[in-house]
């Protein structure tokens, strides 16, 4: 098992503002799987993703990624963990505005001792012709491609995607999802995608549905729909 999540609890606030977001989540993801976490607003899906990515701490429980327990890690160790194993894709891209596409990707290239080849990645992501453009010169989809490239360049074993298509139109969303699918196939990257979009669940290996801080249901798709064929994105 590549990712094991055991009885993870997380709360915010104190007193009257106390909210327990995760109430004992248990689940797991196999290596190379694409996994979608779904749920309504406030169900705890982003919080769970942040805990897996070491961006947020959990109150209790255990998250083991590729055999490494991340509960109780110090900030510096978490930073090294992210540096070595993770890639992040965000809804709002978060590209460095005054760096070109290529430069934005290069920022993370140096983080890995064994990065992917830049040209190949640009080619795979269809960014070759845009590589010298600044984010402000790109469309939303192109910016997200750039963000994906930035996340992938360091060849992460686990790619965490927080609403990767949330700010994109349907076609662009499909393109991005197709891209992710290709990457998964090509690089065997384990992917966890947090999304509201109900269609995306059909393209992944495993679906986890959270409700009120608990895993309500989880299942693996016996038949996956290719991303290019997804509807209602």
């Amino acid at each position, binding site marked *: 098992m590549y990712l094991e999540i055991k009885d993870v609890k997380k709360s915010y606030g104190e007193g009257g503002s106390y909210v327990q977001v995760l109430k004992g989540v248990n689940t797991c993801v196999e290596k190379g799987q694409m996994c979608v976490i779904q749920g309504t607003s406030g169900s705890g899906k982003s919080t769970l993703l942040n805990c897996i990515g070491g961006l947020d701490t959990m109150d209790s429980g255990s998250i083991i990624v590729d055999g490494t327990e991340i509960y109780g890690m110090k900030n510096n160790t978490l930073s090294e963990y*992210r540096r070595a194993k*993770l890639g*992040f894709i965000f809804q709002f891209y978060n590209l460095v505005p005054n*760096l070109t596409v290529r430069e934005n990707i*290069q920022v*993370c290239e140096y*983080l890995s001792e064994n990065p992917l080849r830049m040209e190949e990645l640009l080619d795979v992501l269809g960014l070759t012709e845009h590589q010298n453009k600044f984010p402000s010169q790109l469309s939303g989809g192109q910016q997200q491609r750039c963000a994906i490239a930035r996340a992938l360049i360091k060849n992460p074993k686990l790619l965490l995607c927080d609403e990767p298509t949330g700010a994109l139109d349907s076609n662009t969303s499909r393109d991005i999802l197709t891209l992710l699918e290709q990457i998964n196939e090509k690089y065997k990257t384990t992917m966890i995608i947090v999304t509201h979009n109900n269609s995306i669940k059909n393209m992944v290996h495993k679906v986890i549905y959270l409700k009120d801080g608990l895993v309500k249901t989880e299942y693996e798709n016996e038949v996956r729909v290719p991303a290019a064929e997804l509807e209602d994105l």
Partner: protein
Amino acid sequence: MRKILMKRYPRELKANLFRYLSLFLLITFCMFLIISIVDAAERVIRGTERNQAESVLEDGQITTFNPFTEEQLKEIEDAGITIEPHFSFEYTLENGSVLRMFVNREKIDKVVLDSGKLPEESDEIVLEKRFAEENHYSAGGIIILGEKEYKITGTGSSVDYDAPYRKLSDTIIDSSTFGTAFLTKEGYDELKKSGGSGEELTYAFLLGDHTAAEFKEMVKDFEFDYKKVEDPYYQELLSDTYGKKDEIQDGINDLVDGVDELADGVDELKDGTKELADGMEELYDGSVELYDGSVELYDGMKELKDGTKEFRDGVNELTDGVTKLEDGANALENGSNALNGGLWSLNNGTANLRDALRELNNNNAQIEGGADQIFQAYLTTAQNSINEQLTAMGMPGISLNAENYSDVLSGLADRLSKAGMDASEINDVKDSLNGIEAYVNGVKQYTGAVSQITEGAGSLADGSAQAFSGSGSLHEGTVAFRDGIAEFRDGTGELTEATKKLDDGAKELSDGSRELSDGTRELSDGVKEAYDGSIELDDGVKELKDGVKELKDGVGDLKEQSDEMLDKLFQDSPDNITEFMLKDENNRIGGAAGDLQMNRSVGLLAGVIVMVLFTYVLSVFVIHQIQSESSVIGALYSLGVRKKELVSHYITLPTLVCFLGGLCGGLLGLCKFGSDTQMGDTYSYYSVPWFGMMVPFYLIIYAVAMPPLVSALVNYIVINKSLSRTALSLLRNEQKVSRRNNIKLGKMNFINTYRTRQFLREIRTALTILFGMIISLLVLMMGLDCYVLCESAGRLNSEDVKYQYMYSYKYPTKEPPEGGEPLYVQSLKKEQYGFNLDITVMGIDEDNPYIDVKTVPGKNKIVASDSVAVRYKVGVGDKIIFSDTANDIDYAFTVADIVPYSVGLTVFMDIDDMRDLFGEEDDYYNVVMSDHELEIEEGRIYSVTSKEDIDKAADIFLKLMKSMFVTLIGASAVIFALVMYLMIAVMIDRSSFGISLLKIFGFRKGEIQKLYLDGNRLMILLGALIAVPVSKYFMDSIFPSFIGNVACAIHLEFPWYLYVMIFAGILATYEVINLFMMAKLSRVSQTEVLKNRD
């Protein structure tokens, strides 16, 4: 990654070109100013050091009355001391300016030429460069001295006159009226003959291995014939001083002789008192004996008196006895008559008695024979009876006689009793015999008595016969006795008379002896007192003698010491030295370097302070950038980028800007426009050679490294916190809600509430503006303080100087000149900030018309000028110590009052107390003030100061400082304007979302301006209200240290209008900036809201 991120820098710079460029320029400008000032200071300081070494700067100079002889010079040189005559005289040119002429130097203080060559002919001259500049002379030109033309072969300077003060007491260099010139020896001598006056015989020296004191002593030991000194005033002084030596010595010799005589007299007196004491002792002993005798006499008289009394009593008793004796004698006569008659009768009777008794006596033998017979008869009868009875009993008989009957009968009775027989009969016999015997004895007694009576009667008859005849004689005797007694009675009457006289005499004698005793006792007491007195007198005279001996010794010592002192005063003191001054005491040497020391230290410090401000401004930009890139930074953190990598990234750009600004400013500061320009002030004031390009290594490091280091430090401190947030927090762009944002504002209208919230949100930026305002105001205050100092110094000096002329005497006359007000002025020293400044102690009369100061009596009481009080921070009642460094004496004074007086650093004393304190004569003075020019012999005068000179000096000072305070005021305005512009611009940038939103909501331009800009006006105004007094106070506190080497009053009070101008300037600057900001506000697009959410 750094490589990739570095690509952001040019883009960042391009995007914020004005912001970074303006800061870069500001840093460059400030570093240019600082580096140029510091480098100029370094060039002058180090250049002066090098020049002093190359020109062989003197160790000091000595001025003499007479030139050293060849032998003396040789002795000096032989001792290893290098000496060179630097004789000089002053020559007044036609325009009134004065040239001090020297022979060209060869060994010490060598002339450094700026142009031309040294003089070789007697008509060639080199002029001191500043004098030449001010009077438009140049190498190759001509100068007319007297009637002769001199060819100016060059212009230059000498290290002993780099601050060419005419007098050492001058505070302002005026090269238009004074300079130095150098000629050949021949040229010098010729010119001196043709009109030079008052030659100063000064030698410059290099001490070698010797100390200054050793050299001075050596010169003092040189033979000096003071009579050869040509100066008549000096001779006059000598006659008033050294001429007194003999008088003083004669006086002391007289004193010694007098003391010798006194000692002799006291010796004699001592002998006399000794004799007197001995005599008194004897007299006292005699008086004691006399007293004892008088006491004995008195006792004898007393006894005599008692004896006469007893004698008188005896005479009285004798008289009484004689009277009684007379009576007795009469009675005795009468008795003897009666006795005679009785004796006659007795004689008759006794004769009859005798006869009768004789008859009776004739019958006595018969009576006694009868009695014996009876007793014998009775014994025989008894014996016979008893023998019969004894024979009857068979016992032997007894024999009885008159002698043994009692014993025989008693023995017999005992035997009978023992034999148990009755002895009563025997005892009866015995008793009977005893009776008879007693009878016989009685008869015998009777006959014996009759016989005796008969004999007595015979004797009585004889006696009575004789008594009868004796009584006849007795009667005759008693008659004669009675007559004798009568004569004796007459004698005792005379004796009684005599005794009375004797008694009276004895009484008088007793009284006399008592008076004599009292008298001798008083005499004795008196003599005792006289004796004690004579002893005391002797002791006193002895002490007097000791005292006189000590006096004699003291006078001997006095003579020795006074001889030594006189030798010192009149032989040592009138040595050949008129002035001995080491290079450190000579304010003409190193004046330029000394003045610029402060520039260097203040400049370096100011650079750091200004850089802190600029880098803080930069850090505000960076913080703004970090906030705007918060989510990007969060994403990068998420991807594993470390904080330190981003910290170094964000620090790099401001540090780079600072580095480049420092580098450019440094380069500019070191180039011709920089330090050369800064040195212009030095070259236009001091007489120093041109110091070429010099770049101290530390200054390069300072210019290149200090700005980026300060930037890195400040930015690290500021940025580190912002980048310490978690990745998630940054991703979410969470804004920390600080307490200040939660302040409840109460009931305020919307505009004010919004403004206040905006202000609280931007308080960091507001504080930066305030900080910038304080820094720029500090610079402004420095410039204004300079201006105010110069302006007030000139104005107040002019007001305080009420005289037209002040003459400082070298040789004052006995009486001050007519129309002149005498003062006694003494120069002492007081150290502050490492500078030993001259304090003028001015002794004045109460009615001095030129000094409106009421002095306080007392040798240690001074009235301090406010310039002294302010500089040394003393108030009334405080103690202050001034030093006489030449004589190594400290004087402690109490400040009795403080008065406004701004000329130099002056304190006032009562002139009499001051003369007393400094040991001068009661009429001594050395300065005269006057309201008109006085005719005083030039040779007596050390210097003349006119009011015009003082006014002129103030003008020069103001002119000299003008460029400095204009630069400072300008720099402060630029700093303030730029900092304010940049910070308000940042405020608007940070608020662009809100501004955009308000525009979308339909707020008008004026309303948005009210919300975002007008609040700043209040902030600037309040900031100014705080920053102006704070910066003024701070600058006033440190400003005195900037001018620590200038002995002048420090009046830094601003007139009210200056404050108004400062506030007006601040507000005007703000309004101009505000105009730019309004334009910027207009440029904020409504789409900003959307941008921020993309």
